[in-house]
């Protein structure tokens, strides 16, 4: 049997870890692995703080992956919003691999968080904050293209952050492709993989997104069709997931108005969906306020039920008052 020295053991312990010598960062631990690269916790020696460091797994011969990672960092740098994780720095390792650092978010993923929230309005308000961040990105001309529970983090102070903009697209920009390669990250393939869902990226921009959350035009690989309405589709599926309390594949018995919002957002035809995120968020806010939503025509009973629910306290008070008046009149006129 080969004898391994202590030095070799040390190297093999971190056999997947990038060499950060020559940078201002010290590697701490692996926190996530995706199709393109891995994310580590690293210590910024100059500022004495911990950051998340995303680095490519391998050097790519034609530079496509490098271009994609650099582009992702640049897109993030343009999106200064409380709901989007801020990027700090971009650089290259001694072996040529590109990396970027961003804020280290301590907290838990949306799918784990929503399972702990019992109230539907609480979960929907969380969803609205995701909509805020996505709407901001859309206003800057950026489509996320991979919105799913695993890419949304809830920070320690309840902040909602949309992560992983690796598949993001800027309108009007030429698509960066990754040759003919197919990258699949799946927890079943590697048990130590912290990721829980699959992201499929294929060459020539054919299919980008996550099955179950990507829009039909993404699934078809129709990159010309992909715009902000593709994100609206993903938000629609996310809405169903959140409304179900974080149980994937479960068809929740949603209130009809809420179901109509979800159906509108996930329409097969992009033109049949909400035109922008603000409209979707607006309808959801109306629903939360007990007001009629634009995509659902209520019958009389539903309208009355909603009216009763919204003004429940006042209706009960008035009813009690009227009953008292009737009783008083009845006893005095006997």
């Amino acid at each position: 049997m080969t004898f391994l020295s202590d030095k070799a053991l040390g190297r093999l312990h971190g056999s997947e870890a990038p060499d950060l010598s020559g940078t201002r960062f010290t590697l701490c631990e692996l926190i996530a692995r995706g199709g393109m690269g891995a994310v580590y916790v690293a210590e910024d020696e100059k500022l004495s703080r911990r950051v998340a460091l995303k680095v490519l797994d391998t050097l790519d011969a034609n530079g496509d992956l490098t271009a994609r990672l650099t582009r992702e960092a640049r897109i993030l740098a343009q999106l200064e919003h409380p709901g989007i994780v801020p990027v700090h720095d971009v650089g290259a390792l001694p072996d040529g691999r590109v990396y970027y650092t961003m804020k280290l978010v301590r907290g838990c993923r949306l799918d784990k968080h929503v399972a702990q929230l019992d109230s539907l309005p609480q979960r929907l308000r969380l969803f609205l904050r995701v909509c805020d961040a996505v709407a901001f990105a859309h206003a800057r001309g950026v489509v996320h293209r991979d919105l799913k529970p695993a890419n949304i983090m809830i920070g320690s102070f309840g902040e909602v952050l949309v992560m992983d903009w690796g598949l993001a697209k800027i309108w009007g920009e030429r698509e960066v492709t990754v040759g003919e390669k197919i990258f699949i990250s799946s927890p079943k393939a590697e048990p130590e993989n912290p990721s829980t869902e699959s992201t499929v990226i294929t060459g020539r921009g054919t299919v980008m997104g996550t099955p179950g959350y990507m829009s039909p035009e993404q699934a078809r690989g129709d990159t010309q069709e992909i715009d902000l309405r593709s994100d609206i589709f993903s938000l629609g599926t996310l809405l169903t997931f959140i409304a179900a309390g974080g149980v994937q594949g479960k068809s929740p018995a949603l209130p009809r108005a809420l179901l109509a919002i979800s159906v509108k957002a996930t329409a097969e035809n992009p033109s049949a969906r909400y035109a922008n995120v603000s409209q979707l968020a607006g309808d959801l806010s109306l629903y939360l306020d007990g007001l009629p939503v634009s995509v659902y025509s209520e019958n009389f009973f539903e309208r009355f039920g909603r009216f009763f629910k919204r003004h429940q306290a006042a209706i009960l008070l008035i009813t009690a008052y009227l009953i008292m008046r009737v009783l008083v009149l009845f006893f005095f006129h006997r």
Partner: protein
Amino acid sequence: MTAAGESFPLTRLSVLAAARSQDGAERARALDTLFGVYWKPVYKYIRLKFSQSPQDTQDLTQGFFAELLERGLLSRFDPAKSRLRTYLRLCVDSFVLNEMKAASRRKRGGKIMQIALDFSAAEDELCTQAINPASIASLESLENFFEKEWIRSLFSSAVDELRGDCEAQAKQKAFQLFEAYDLSEENVSYAELAVSFSLSLTEVNNRLAWARRQFRRIALHRLRALCDSEEEFAREARTLFGISTK
């Protein structure tokens, strides 16, 4: 006893579950694997902790594994209470102390299973490591020593398997790069490797990444078989490949 790398059972059962199996062949293979990974750590541990001569340590090592089988010690292991290697280390302590107290050490190797262990290799490794017993006198240091030797044993067998895989797939160059960069005592850069192997920097990086991934896969596969539950596996995988936090 064959080298652990050759006898590793590709079974869905963990080694521990297989060791408790009613199927004799399955049980023998499992024990073979278990001994393959643990005999060197046990030998070195006894040598250092109890300051025994090489000959006495050989007898004690053989005796310990024989006792493990005779008394069915593996069936008493409870993964909820401790890790397997901690349990085995405590069993070694108890066994050696009893043997020393009774002063009735005897060879037991041939009774149930013939365990042919290459003790000279373990002794050579101890000489190479040039360990000063005084430096690991404390209990904690001895625990760390045992753990480190267990990892060394597991990684060594994974490296051997990787070498075989590379030869079978005609990827010897990837293994040579892995050996030169990750296993060697010398510090070489990717650029130096690229020159000496007449490859581009990208090729060096990609081949090394492939070899490391394969090594990791093999080591984790072996580790999985040695663990009794998914929780234990996740914990041990983190110990093996997790990067130390400050």
